[in-house]
């Protein structure tokens, strides 16, 4: 009996010792760091979410293959929100409460981001959004950042270009979704700053299959240019229908046009379309000494060879979000969430796909108007407009 007890205690001690030993081994290698990502991989905003999810997977694989960050591997948890804010909210809660991630990348759309802005702030969870709306960082919430360029800067670029071309009377047409309606508001507010009159402003159905009636209406208004603020497929339809009814004025589109397949879907009709966009799509024609050139070319090459599809600016936003996070993790040294947050806020001159980021406690976007270029379509390919 006594022997048995002794034996039992002995085994217990050995088990404990082994347990401690293995624990020690693990902490020596450093545990993985969980990073959450919420993207609209399927559903109506999959044109944003799908390239974003692919990009972060590629990015994380590359980091882990190179030994991780300060010895920590990154464990990426990607969730598909299908662009529904209610899904996003519960996914965010999962990532915060169950997974206890270091930070959340995404979501893809502005509506979803606004749905979780307060939740993340209250939970002191770092959120780096890939959506464009300015409300995300204005007013500033200390844990919430965003990496795409500002909507208002896109509108300003359009009006600046119009002014150079001597255009003063325009039409604004937008789709009846969050992106379009917000765009119309921006355009109508900013137009007077540049002395431009919006002669007619119309909203059409986002699932429209033909828009010749709308452009026929515009044709009767004596306008000098059209601004269309929408996503696929309407943005190629507008280009086609304008040419079809013979409305021969310049067509400006939003930065949402930043995917070469939209230009191709428009065929010949898309040639000459003007739109403000980051430099990723024209990386190969940038001068060699441009600070973004090397990074853009590398991302483009990696993405296109791995996924066999053209790179888009939206995947670039996800790239930037992870870049901002991982650079901050490197600087913060240990993986404390508050220290990483402070490090993000102090990042200066960080070269990303959208531009060069200079964060500050007042500016959680860190980009200026210089992050955009005015692009155009030439023979089915993107080109810089000024050439």
């Amino acid at each position, binding site marked *: 009996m006594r022997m048995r007890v002794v034996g039992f205690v002995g085994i217990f001690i050995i088990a404990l010792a082994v347990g401690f030993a293995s624990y020690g081994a693990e902490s020596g290698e450093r545990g993985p760091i969980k990073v959450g990502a919420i993207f609209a991989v399927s559903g109506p905003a999959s*044109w944003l979410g799908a390239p974003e999810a692919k990009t972060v997977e590629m990015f994380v694989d590359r980091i882990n293959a190179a030994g991780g960050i300060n010895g920590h591997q990154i464990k990426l948890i990607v969730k598909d929100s299908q662009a529904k804010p209610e899904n996003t909210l519960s996914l965010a809660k999962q990532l915060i409460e169950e997974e206890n991630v270091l930070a959340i990348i995404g979501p893809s759309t502005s509506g979803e981001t606004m749905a979780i802005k307060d939740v993340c702030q209250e939970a002191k969870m770092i959120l780096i959004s890939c959506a464009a709306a300015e409300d995300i960082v204005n007013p500033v919430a200390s844990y919430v950042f965003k990496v795409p360029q500002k909507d208002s800067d896109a509108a300003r670029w359009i009006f600046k270009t119009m002014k150079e071309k001597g255009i003063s009377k325009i039409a604004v047409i937008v789709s*009846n979704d969050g992106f379009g309606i917000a765009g119309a508001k921006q355009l109508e507010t900013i137009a007077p700053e540049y002395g431009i009159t919006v002669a007619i402003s119309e909203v059409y159905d986002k699932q429209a*299959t*033909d828009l010749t*009636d*709308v452009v026929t209406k515009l044709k009767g208004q004596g306008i000098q240019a059209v601004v269309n603020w929408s996503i696929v*497929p309407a943005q190629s*339809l507008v280009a086609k229908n304008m040419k*079809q009814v013979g409305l021969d004025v310049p067509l400006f589109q939003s930065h949402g046009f930043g995917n070469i397949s939209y230009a191709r879907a428009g065929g010949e009709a898309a040639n000459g379309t003007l739109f403000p966009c980051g430099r990723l799509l024209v990386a190969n024609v940038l001068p060699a000494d441009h600070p973004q050139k090397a990074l853009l070319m590398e991302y483009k090459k990696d993405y296109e060879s791995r996924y066999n599809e053209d790179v888009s600016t939206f995947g670039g936003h996800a790239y930037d979000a992870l870049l901002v996070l991982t650079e901050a993790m490197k600087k913060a040294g240990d993986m404390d969430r508050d220290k990483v947050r402070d490090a993000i806020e102090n990042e200066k001159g960080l070269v990303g796909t959208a531009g060069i980021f200079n964060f500050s406690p007042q500016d959680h976007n860190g980009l200026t108007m210089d992050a955009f270029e005015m692009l155009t379509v030439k023979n089915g390919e993107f080109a810089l407009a000024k050439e």
Partner: protein
Amino acid sequence: MDLAQIVQYCFSGITVGSIYAIVAIGFNIIFNTTGIINFAQGEFLIVGAMTSISLCKVLPLPLAILVAVLITTLLGGLVELVFIRRLRDASVLRLIVITIGVSILIREAMLHIWDEKVRSLPYFTGTSISTVTLLGAHISLQVLWVLGVSAVVVMALTLFFRFTLMGRAMRSCADDRMAARLCGVNDRWMVTLSFMLSAGTGALAGCVISPITQTQYDMGAPLAIKGFTVAILGGLGNSMAAVAAGLLLGLLEAFMVSQLQVAYKEAVAIVVLLLVLVFRPSGLFARSEVSALRAS
């Protein structure tokens, strides 16, 4: 509004209307045989268009469309065999709900087979900017293709349902399944055939409109809703009336746009649908006695 602009609005209405009409035709085929509305019709369109776009890379355009139509036809038959046939005495409502489920299934499958991207077939003749000019207004060549194909399909279907034994047998199944069976009609195969026929017609429609509307995996539902509205408007089961109703709705929408804010355009179809359902439930072009007989 000058003449050129009025004609331009007409052309715009015809463009949209021809799309509605060709979608509506597919609804009528299955309704003619089974009395059910197949809500997966929109998905048949997109499957057809997607398949032909993929095949187009290796085959010439007409052959790609032909093969796509055949593949979709088989898919239509398969849907019937797997989901509809086994429910022998299911109510019409239950079958309709099943077609809604099938539509979701096909849509998700398409998302996985292809992806979320927008594609389109090349214009059959000319390019996206070539048009025909009439009285100072322009119309895309592809619209003429849609109208032409609709006309041929409607004509062929009308002849088929009126004058061939098989067409009549299919119609008899909708009127009275038991009586048809007693007369020696193999009613089960007629239903399968009607699904195949409507899937094939849908695929053809999807291919013809693809250059205009472009094609994306989740585009089927909105197209189907408009097609359904038009099918009701014309009177279910009557393909010729569907074409007339499609053009009518298209023109109505186009002239609505000329007078009101574009944002109200989508309301037009819904208002028209409600009015028809309340005042002429058998459709604009059906004689009221016929529907009274059917109802009794």
